[in-house]
């Protein structure tokens, strides 16, 4: 953290930023002694102080995934999101852009909007009805007898936002990392053809996992455990994460099928001018990313038992249903699957050191009709089941981290992305503490 001689008003009175020197030294040491290629020491998953530092060092510094434009289709629509102690409201403006404001009333700090989503004109705090414009300016506060009250000093605080390919990202840091715009240049060409601006939310699932946010992310970054996902195994090649040399014999046949599917997918992508190459910079930059377009098993169209499409309306201007899945991993809190017929976004919202909200949103073309073009249960089946299974895995690990016998274990070759995530995390935190 860089110490400025003239600390801004906003950092005043934050006790949490000053972890006692002794404890801080201890935590520093934990970071320094982290054994590469091994899972983290238990306190990283269980300690409230480290959680607080995670919120400062990761969630108050980096670009975070918040929602997609389909969740706030019209002017005045908003969603509220929470990253640990930070609550933001994301609102669609009249001109089509989005505003991101801190959901903290400037009177006495009440949450201004309490619903997870909705639609509103001006923003009215429920406590004493201070009223803010959609831009966050305080435009009304009844002030009987007040003579020197200057409304212009009490607007809602703003946060940075970016909308790329229909995904809304936020950053609450004063000076956000600058490489995110470069990373957007990488992923936008992959995602834009799916035209999220012309999609709608078919379903949204919120689950609270009893696990540290890092365990949720680690679990997502490997498919070593994919035997535990029978539904997903129908369409996702279980060879994911493996490379030529390390394919176990029982997967050889699948490996070949995967190769073939890959070839025909690449041919299709070339035909339609869709990028498919793997770009992987998970821990080599601040806005860590992995993106690629990969084949799906069976008919190769969607996450269904036979790989057949789950919605009959193609997204955007795509011409073909057999486009596998364009998948993106972003550090620190999101992953996505973009298919020909639907898109699934996953956002990770830490609650405390042992609880994390995982929000999964299924998007289909906005002219797709439920019951006619898609069956909601079928559309959501695979990932609903997979999420429940993953929740259980994460919770097992959280319990393990809390037990006296726990010690860090080795990540296997197929878990290189987990290592990359942890390595990314450690680097960011060390920068934060420096």
């Amino acid at each position, binding site marked *: 953290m860089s110490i400025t001689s003239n600390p801004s008003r906003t950092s005043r009175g934050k006790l949490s930023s000053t972890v006692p020197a002794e404890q801080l030294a201890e935590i520093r040491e934990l970071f320094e002694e982290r054994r590469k290629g091994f899972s983290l020491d238990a306190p990283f998953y269980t300690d409230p102080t480290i959680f607080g530092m995670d919120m400062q060092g990761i969630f108050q510094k980096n670009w975070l995934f918040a929602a997609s434009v389909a969740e706030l289709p019209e002017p005045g629509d908003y969603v509220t999101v929470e990253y640990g102690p930070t609550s933001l409201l994301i609102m669609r403006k009249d001109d*089509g852009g989005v505003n991101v404001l801190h959901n903290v009333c400037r009177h006495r700090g009440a949450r201004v909007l309490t619903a997870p989503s909705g639609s*509103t004109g001006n923003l009215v705090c429920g406590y004493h009805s201070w009223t803010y*414009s959609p831009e966050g300016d305080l435009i009304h506060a009844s002030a009987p007898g007040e003579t020197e009250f200057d409304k212009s000093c009490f607007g809602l605080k703003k946060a940075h936002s970016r909308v*790329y390919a229909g995904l809304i990202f936020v950053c609450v840091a004063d*000076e956000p990392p600058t490489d995110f715009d470069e990373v957007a240049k990488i992923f936008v060409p992959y995602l834009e053809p799916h035209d999220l601006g012309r999609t709608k939310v078919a379903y949204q699932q919120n689950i609270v996992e009893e696990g540290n946010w890092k365990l949720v992310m680690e679990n997502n970054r490997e498919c070593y455990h994919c035997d535990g996902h029978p539904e997903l195994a129908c369409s996702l090649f279980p060879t994911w994460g493996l490379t030529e040399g390390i394919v176990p014999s029982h997967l050889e046949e699948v490996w070949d099928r995967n190769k073939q599917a890959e070839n025909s997918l690449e041919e299709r992508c070339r035909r339609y001018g869709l990028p498919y190459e793997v770009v992987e910079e998970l821990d080599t930059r601040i806005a860590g990313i992995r993106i690629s377009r990969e084949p799906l098993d069976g008919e190769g169209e969607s996450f269904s038992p036979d790989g057949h*499409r789950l919605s*009959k309306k193609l997204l955007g201007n795509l011409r073909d249903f057999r486009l596998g899945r364009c998948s993106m991993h972003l550090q620190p809190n999101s992953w996505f699957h973009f298919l*020909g017929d639907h898109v699934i976004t996953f956002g990770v919202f830490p609650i405390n050191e042992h609880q994390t909200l995982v929000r999964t949103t299924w998007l289909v073309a906005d002219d797709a009709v439920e019951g006619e073009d898609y069956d909601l249960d079928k559309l959501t089946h695979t990932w609903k089941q997979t999420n429940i299974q993953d929740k259980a895995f994460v919770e097992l690990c959280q319990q393990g981290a809390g037990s006296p016998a726990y010690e860090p274990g080795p990540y296997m070759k197929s878990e290189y992305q987990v290592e990359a995530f942890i390595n990314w995390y450690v680097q960011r935190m060390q920068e934060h503490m420096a």
Partner: protein
Amino acid sequence: MTITTTSIEVPEPQRVRDFVMPWNHTLSANGPAANAARALGPWHPQEFMAECVETIPEAGGLKTFVFRRLDGAPLAFRAGQYLNIAFPIHGEDQDPVDRSYSISSAPTSPWTFSITVKRDNGGLVSPWIHDHVEPGTVLDMLGPVGAFHLPDVERRPRYLLLAAGAGITPIMSMLRTIHALPGRADVVVLYHGAAPGEFGFAKELEYIANVDDRIQVFYSLGDRSVPENWEWMLGRLTAQMLEQVAPDANGRQVYACGPEGYLNHAADLLRKVGVDDTSVHMEFFSGDRKTLLEYQEEISLAEDLAEEYAEEAAEQTNHFAETQPAELQLFQPAATDIDTEAEVEAEAVADADTDAPVDDSDFTSVGEGTLTLSFIKSRIKLRIDPTERILGPAQRAGVRIGANCQEGMCGSCKIVKISGEVEMNHQGGIRAREIASGKFLPCCSTAQSDMVIDA
């Protein structure tokens, strides 16, 4: 600290993206459509008489017969539909023989229309048509009939049109329609014929494919022997052939017309290359008993509908005639059964208008003024002047309305009007959407008429 909020998703003005049939506008308009536009709408089957005005010999033993309705009205149909025509083969005093023929012309030129008939020398009807129908021949017709047609509006107008032999007729209508209309489209035609000279409409197809870069046409020569100068494909339909002409077939809507064997074979292949069953539309021009019975059913249903509509039309024409110049009477179509959402809503509002202040005996009346506001939950009738803001008098009369800013900013006083007009001067406390759905802010509104309010 510099805060930047970017507005990247500003919606751009859009060019015509969707492919829209001209009558779709009429279908979705609220008010009564202009009569000419109405006449173009593919509303319903009718029984009418039509006169042959021209015959055009085509390649492949086909002949096109151009008709116009005797009543002078345009023929409204959707590209791909057919007509059921009575042919007096055994003389005028005997029962005519009914046959169905696809319309080969486009609904975008509706004042005349054509059918294209292949001469089948072993058959009873087609040779008679070829030999006897000529300019001046008048026939009884029923139509349009059939569910095999292009959609009225399509965001993804990507089609694969498959035709074999005389199956080109409805496909030709579709192609002419698409060619005539603006909008994005991506059309691939694969046309199977028996011999090089037997592809009907060959010249026009070549022309359209040349001038319209949205349309590609491919030919294949069935399984016959090949003459030397044939440059197109050879052989029956195969999966490979489909992949070759339309590698993105699985993302297209497929319309196919031809003999039964060809279509069944095509259905298998389409499944194989990944076309979803629900994206395949077929018209059989020959078929087993079941298929034929289905068509018969379609026709008899069309007959019933036509009768119903004719009766309605007759009724309407009576009072319509009073207000219209005589020659327009012919154009008066029957009422449509397509209720747009807006119409339904308008009706609902109209209903509310008439029966809202139902039993007002237990309403308390307060105030003085020229207008009456009936608050139906509070059972209060408030008399008010058109210059007075509504909130204060309403609250004082005992209507429970939350309020805070009193300036139209906070939205806390928002209530719903069931009828009547207000003039509102708000400052962002309400969204255009909410206003459209009947909400208003009484703190910054004055009444413009008597009102019924849901509060």
